[in-house]
């Protein structure tokens, strides 16, 4: 479904991703793991067209999108939930959700999608008219995911959805992500919570300093010595 070929992302002189190639198949959950500053977020930003890659190719359903504008890529079906959620705090929950659909060419279906989002996250229905800055951290994450779903993603990219959340809420969020995948949604998950990410992912890529270190089935990687030592803190 999505393939990056040897992409390189840099901010001025600082190289964030140097020659990364990923593949995400239809219906998969793919985890992108690695330490802080490994280039995980930059990879996502490059796929979404927010920070266009300097070189390399990004193919989505066979189409080259590496030079496309971010709003085009969004409409094509690649939606990301950014780290830190980036909710519009001056607006209501309702407005935040509707914004997810505003950029689509047929936002008329928004009502239908909204009902769907409510069934996944009933709390958003309860808080529909509240200002977003009155929500708790967990509710904000659900709002961010809900807003992303309003964009009717084919490929849904989530950046650190567990960040700053209580363990119980993290479980709930991950359960929803698995639920979305069960309904056929393809997911790219960027996580520092490596154990949880590998538990729900099909496949995973481990990157460090902008380059690929290991890739494979998530179950296999859970047993990989390198990952056990560096990320799960239990030497094999």
């Amino acid at each position, binding site marked *: 479904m999505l393939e990056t070929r040897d992409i390189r992302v840099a901010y001025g002189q600082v190289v964030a991703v140097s020659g990364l190639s990923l593949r995400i198949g239809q219906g998969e959950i793919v985890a992108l793991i690695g330490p802080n500053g490994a280039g995980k977020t930059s990879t996502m930003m490059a796929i*979404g067209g927010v920070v266009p890659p300097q070189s390399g190719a990004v193919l989505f359903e066979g189409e080259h999108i590496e030079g496309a504008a971010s709003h085009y890529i969004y*409409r094509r079906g690649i939606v990301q939930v950014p780290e830190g959620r*980036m909710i*519009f705090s*001056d*607006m209501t929950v309702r*407005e935040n959700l509707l*914004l997810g659909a*505003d950029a689509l060419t047929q936002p008329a279906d928004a009502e239908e999608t909204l009902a769907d989002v409510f069934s996944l996250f009933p709390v958003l229905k309860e808080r529909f008219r509240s200002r977003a800055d009155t929500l708790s951290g967990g509710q904000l994450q659900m709002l961010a995911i809900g807003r992303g779903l309003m*964009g009717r993603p084919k490929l849904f990219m989530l950046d650190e959805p567990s960040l700053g959340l209580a363990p119980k809420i993290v479980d709930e969020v991950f359960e929803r992500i698995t639920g979305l995948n069960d309904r056929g949604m393809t997911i790219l998950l960027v996580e520092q919570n490596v154990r949880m990410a590998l538990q729900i992912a099909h496949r995973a890529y481990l990157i460090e300093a902008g380059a690929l270190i290991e890739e494979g089935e998530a179950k296999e990687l859970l047993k990989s010595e390198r990952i056990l030592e560096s990320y799960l803190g239990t030497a094999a």
Partner: protein
Amino acid sequence: MLDFAQNTLDGIMVGASYALLGLGFTLTFGVMRRLNLSYGPTIMMGVYAGAYVSLNVYGSLLLALAIAVAVSVIVGLVIEGVCFRAVQSDNPLASMVSAFAMWMVLEEIIILLTWGRLFPVQNPSGLSTFDIGPISVRGDYFALFVAAVVLMVGIYWLLFHTAFGRKVRAVGENRKSAQLVGIDVNRVSREIFVLTSAFGGFVAFFIAASLHQITPGFGLWATVKGLIVMILGGIGSVPGAVLGGLLLGIIELQAVWYIGASYRDLIAFALLFLFLVVRPRGLLGQGERSS
């Protein structure tokens, strides 16, 4: 006391038009994070075009208004392209200076075409002065006030009840987040130029009509009023611009009555200075935001 009430009423009516000039600045600033100094000259071009047509081609005031709006929008789009889109520097000074240069160009064009002569502008409403009890209401001010209120209601509705308004506010709150929900930020910028130029041209025609004429100095006048109102109200605040406009209008007209007409602009600048010293974030400004 009666004088004070009369001045206050006149101030509210004039201030409503100032509010719109402030809205023009504040909305553009909210979306672009850039100051469009040539906003005043943009709408001045519209007024000149409208007044010219109604004087020399066909004397319909509705047509004059339509032309004022259309020409303002066209000039606004040119400025957006030349001074903002083409100037992709991260330094906000770059587009500010280019907008300033454009202002000079527009002013020179008008001076060359009109030889610097005054241009009469007729009141599109044709209302004359009428009395409500002891208070008299100037017809041209009243028309200006009604036009401004209608436009403000329309702008409020657009901003807070449509998808377009959501996008504008999203870009204003955080450009990057807006990009992440698939908003075409450049397109929203262009649309905000169309909107602000359109209502600016409309209200500017009424303002010029209340002054009976337009001069090449109108651009400067409108830019200064708009900037003062934006700062009084708080940069980026829509209700702030409305309050700031009314405040400026009332204080100016009181000053004209009690101190003298020639002190009008001095008082306006003194008010600006006072705010910059005592309350730099304005009436409803939020100050610097962290993210």
